[in-house]
Structure formats: C-alpha cells, structure tokens
C-alpha cells in the first residue's frame, strides 16, 4: 500500500505542546486573552476555553465581542446588557465537586464608556460629557474605542473578581480588528490623541513646539479649522478638558490596564487558522508580545483538516479516474484527495511558522463539521482543545 502522503519528509522543528488543560487549571492564571485577526474562530475558542475551565473547577467569566447570534443565545446573553450572566450548564451532565461556574457577557462599548463616565463624575459633569457631540462619536464609532473598552471592562471585572471572589478566571475575546496588534495599540493611540497635546497646539499654537514657525502655522490652524470644522475642535477640547480633570488622563488609565496585562497572572493565546495570511498575522503578533515582554502561552491553529483514511491523494485520484465522475465513490475519493492536500499545505505553513518561532507552543485543532452554536458543540471544541495528542505536528506520525 502506498504510504499516506503526509509531510514526514519536511524538516520538523520541535514544536512544544501547548498544554491547555495545565493553563486552565493553573490558579495563578487569572486572565486569558484570545487574540487573532478576524474570521479565525476567536469567539468560539474563547467560549470553549471558558467552558473547559469551568468544567475543571474554575469560576470563569468570558467577555465576548459580537458572537454569532445562536452562540449568544445558547450562552444566554442575546440581550446586550453588558453584565455577566450565569450560563446554565445543566444540560451538559456535569457532576462532581470539581465543576466550577461559567458566566458570560457581551461587550457593549458605549455602555461601558458611559458607565466609566457616570461612575467617576458628578451628575452635572457626567451629563456635560455624555451630551458632548464628540463624546457621542467617540463612544460609538471611533477606531480603537472597542479595544479600549474591552480593556476597561477587563480591568473592572478583574477588580470585582479580586474583591468579591465571584470569579477566578477571566477569558477575553478581543475585538475583530483588521489586525491582532490593534488590541495592543489602539488604546494607547487613543490615549495619546486625547492627551491634548496636539489639541492644545491647534488651539493655542503660541505655546506648542510649533511656535517657532508661526508664520506658516496660523495658516495651518485656519486650514485645520476649515477641514475639521471649528465646532469639532471645540467639542473635542471641551471633552478632553472634562475627561482629563476627572480621570487623570486617558493615557494613565490605558497604561495601568496594559501593566495588568503584562503581569504573571495573564496569558495571551493567539488564535490562527492554517492559512498563510492568518499565520503571518500571528507571527507579527507573537513577535510583538515577546518584544513587550507580554506572557504568550502559545498559538492555537484552528480548522486543520484531518483524515483517518490511509490513502494518499495521488492514489485516491488515480482510483477515482476510472470511476464515473458523478458516482458517490468518485466524489468521496476526490474529496479525500483534496482534504489530504489541504492538510499538507496547512501543516507545511504551521511548520514554517514554527521554524521561525522556535519554542512557541502550538496546538492544532481539527476542523469541525458545521457551525458551533450550542453548548454541546462548545464542549466538543473544549475537548479538542484539551486533547494533547493533537498538539504539535509530531502527533501526526
């Protein structure tokens, strides 16, 4: 029999196993962040990890961002109320003293922002901020607000967890950004913009670093006013003044949350698929975490095609050639050949990633048939995440 053409002869760097059960049961780990670019299954992974941890006895809360409607329904969070709700795990047949609890919430960025304002400002001041037109734009449609608010919510829940003991693990699904890096960069960028330095420069250039080129500068200010509209600049300044006075500045707040994230109690999990773009994105993110000394737990590569059939792609196609193309047999063989080839390509890409990121633990998750939209399916994903025999390419031999 022809050997199955799996990429045995490709150079396989040693890929350390990503021991997810160990991470989920390590009580020193209090925050787990799932990062990755859009469309890789981050929300599903976050929810499955949270469920697994609850199964293992942790008291978990998962912050999801924009989950699929049916998944949200099965978690009991279809109402966007920005508050963690207990998930009914009764249907899963869990038993024994080791079962913990699972709460879930869907992030409402505007509500989170409003809450921050209301919690820290006098009613009059809060009203002044909440009705500011710039604040309204900022809290609903600003690039970076969602990331900032995810961090803010995380900070709040972490404090609540420490004070009340309601949770001992927070799992965060990060916003669907164009790039995973946005989660790290957006809050600081936002803070930087609102710090008021440039704003001050625009409104009173005689004090800023541009005072030396005042001849051209008044023209510039006039131009910016024309481009942006003077009302917008005025709104921004009113907002920034009020905000800065209240909270000691955006930047400080962002920095505090970032500091929380680089502590011993946090782990980053990068979620990818076995596609070129996704793994490249993961490579950037992994490098960035290591540059910033952020604690990376490893990379989960989702939707890897698997096969139990001991039949090479070439042989499958050769057999199929002699059969009518529209026979079930020919279709089954062609599908199998394509599956084997897809798998080879995915594994080759994973190996390439591993070769340039030696020592980064990885876990490969097999592609599932159908969408994950109920607790039973989530539980199944959780099992796949915890199955160490699937970890690393070596397991394929």
């Amino acid at each position: 029999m022809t050997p199955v053409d799996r990429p045995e002869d490709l150079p396989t760097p040693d890929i350390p196993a990503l021991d997810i059960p160990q991470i989920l049961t390590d009580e020193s780990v209090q925050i787990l962040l799932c990062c990755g670019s859009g469309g890789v299954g981050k929300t599903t992974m976050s929810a499955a990890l949270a469920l697994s941890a609850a199964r293992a006895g942790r008291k978990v809360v998962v912050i999801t961002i924009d989950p699929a409607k049916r998944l949200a329904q099965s978690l009991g969070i279809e109402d966007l109320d920005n508050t963690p709700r207990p998930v009914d795990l009764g249907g899963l047949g869990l038993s024994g003293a080791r079962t913990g609890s699972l709460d879930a919430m869907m992030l409402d960025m505007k509500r989170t922002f409003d809450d921050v304002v209301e919690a820290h400002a006098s009613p009059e001041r809060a009203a002044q901020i909440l009705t500011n037109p710039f604040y309204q734009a900022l809290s609903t449609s600003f690039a970076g607000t969602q990331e900032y608010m995810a961090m803010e919510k995380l900070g709040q829940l972490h404090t609540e967890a420490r004070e009340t003991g309601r949770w001992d693990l927070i799992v965060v699904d990060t916003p669907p950004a164009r790039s995973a890096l946005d989660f790290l960069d957006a809050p600081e960028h936002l803070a930087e913009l609102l710090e008021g330095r440039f704003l001050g420069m625009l409104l009173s250039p005689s004090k800023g670093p541009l005072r030396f080129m005042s001849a051209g500068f008044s023209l510039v200010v006039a131009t910016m006013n024309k481009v942006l509209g003077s009302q917008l600049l005025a709104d921004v300044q009113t907002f920034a003044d009020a905000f800065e006075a209240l909270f000691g500045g955006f930047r400080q707040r962002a920095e505090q949350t970032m500091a929380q994230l680089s502590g011993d109690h946090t782990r980053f999990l990068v979620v990818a698929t076995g596609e070129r773009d996704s793994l490249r994105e993961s490579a950037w993110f992994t490098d960035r975490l290591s540059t910033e000394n952020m604690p990376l737990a490893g990379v989960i590569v989702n939707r890897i095609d698997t096969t139990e059939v001991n039949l090479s792609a070439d042989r499958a196609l050769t057999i199929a050639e002699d059969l009518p193309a529209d026979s079930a047999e020919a279709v089954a063989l062609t599908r199998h050949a394509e599956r084997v080839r897809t798998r080879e390509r995915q594994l080759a890409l994973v190996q390439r990633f591993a070769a340039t990121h030696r020592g980064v633990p990885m876990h490969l998750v097999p592609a599932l048939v159908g969408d994950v939209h109920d607790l039973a399916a989530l539980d199944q994903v959780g099992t796949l995440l915890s199955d160490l025999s699937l970890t690393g390419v070596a397991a394929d031999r």
Partner: protein
Amino acid sequence: MAAPRGAWLARTSVPAHQLHIVSGKGGTGKTTIAAALACALATRGRRVLLCEVEGRHGITDLFGRPNAADTTTEPRIARTSAGGQVHGLEIDAEEALMEYLATFYHLGIAGKALDRFGVIDFATSIAPGLRDVLLTGKVYEAVRRRQKGRRDSYDAVVLDAPPTGRLARFLNVHEAVSGLAKVGPIAKQADSIMAMLRSEITTVHLVTLLEDMPVTETTEAVAELAPTGIQVGSVIANRATPSPLANDQLELARDGKLQLDLPMLAQADRTALAEEFVGEASRILAERECRERLTSLGVPIVDVPREPLGVDLTTLSSLVESLTHQLSEEVNA
C-alpha cells in the same frame, strides 16, 4: 482621449463598471478575490488599478513587489496573460491628507512639519469620518483620471474595501462628514464621491464563504447598502465545494446509508473513507443551504471553488479564469 502608456494593443472595449468595490467578512478571502478581479479585468491593453486601504500590505504579500506600498508611483504589479496590466496602490489616510492640504491649500512644506508633530495623525484619527473620506477621495481621484483623459488613467479601479461589517459606514461618506466642516473642499468632495459611488460606473462585490456567519453578514451588508443607493453587483461564494451529487444522494451519505463500492481498498480504509464522506456530505449540504439563502438576495452569485493548494501567484490564474468566465459581462473582454 490620449492613448495611455502601454496601450500597444488596441483596446477593444472597456469593463461594464469602472469602479469595483470588493468587501467581505474577515477571513473570507476578499483581498485575494480583489486581486483576481483586477487581473480578470485587465484584458488586452487595459490598465487596472488595485487599491487597498487598510494597511495590511495584502497586495505586496500576494504579488511580492516591494514598491507596491509606495502610494506615489502606483507601480505595475502584474502583467496579465490577456495582455493587460495591473498596478497597485496602498492608500494611506495620512498621506492622502497631506496630498489634500498640498493640493487645496498649497501646504507643501508646512504639511510635512505638521506631520512631524503628529498633527496629521491627530486630524485623521480624531475627526469622525475624515479618514474614510480621504481614502475614498483618493479612489475617486484615480477613477476620475479617465474622464480627464490623463495619461495615467485606468480602465478600471478595484478597491479592496474594509470588511462588510464596516462597509456601509465606509462608503456612506455623506453621513461620515456630517460632523465635519459644512463648507469647503471636504464637504464638496464628499458630494462628488457619493455621486460617483451611486452612479452606474460603480459596483460592489461581496465575498462570502458558504457558512452561516459570513452569509448572515453578507445579507446584512446588502440591507445596509440598499438605502445608500450603491449597487451590489455580485455575491462571490468563495471556497465552495463543488460536487456533482444530487441532494438526496448527499443526504444518504450524510446519514451513513450510502455504501461505497471500492473493492480495491482494504476494508478498514473503505470504512474510514465512508465515515469521512459523512462529514464531507454534511458540509456540502450545509453549503448548498447557505447558497440557497444567498439566492434570495436577488443578486447574481459567482461560485469560486476552494483551492486545496492555497492561493498564491501560481494558483491565482485559475481563480482569474473562473471570475473572467462567470463575470463575463462585467469583464466585457
């Protein structure tokens, strides 16, 4: 109109639409489809511009030209086998604002100084909608060149747009600039951009996978675009699994009731293959159900089969061929 450079072959026709906007949920392959569409449109002697706006360097990654990121030169990134050429442009909002200030306010050097102090970053980030107007404004400028008969004009412009979740907001520049200055060149340009997007030269292609979430997002995008007056020309069902089998046969297979008559295989492999086929059949059926949902949108559907080798420059040509064939009226070769 003066013949543009490179028009050494007589052009027989122009594409049905001059501006093609390609969007899709994250992970559906919209960047690859945009690139393939640009190549498909670049038939004999045609010049096509492929633009991206999200700073992901998707063009450079696919075509591997280091200069594709250079917004000023619009380098040629591909010559198509049909005798056309594709140029690449990575639009950056901050650079667009600088260009804008230079054009309308003659702020050449002062603009650079502003950039050094971060004012340009400030303006493009802080002003709601400004970024989108700057990005679409640059596309507008590239499309307009042909009407002006410029040497650097294009027969078609393909925009690799933001994902479907943000598409309507991105394209609805009118709404976007409502918080900005009511008069002046930005407001005026927003009107012109909107008019172009609503006109018959523009069409939108929504890329989706035949899966629940992407199909739902596509449906939502169609609904969100409807009131803007921007036409959706096609839905592109990417990575679809082709199969000659009828639904009833697939249902039998899914339920494990289909025997595979393959005596040349060992019993164990036959059983394993049948089990694998249960999953395959169930996926194909789910895809067909999703495709059914797409037909109810009343928009032409383009089926792009999945490419097991992954899409790179070598496999891109089969994708280009598939689009050329299925969008023959668009391409109008």
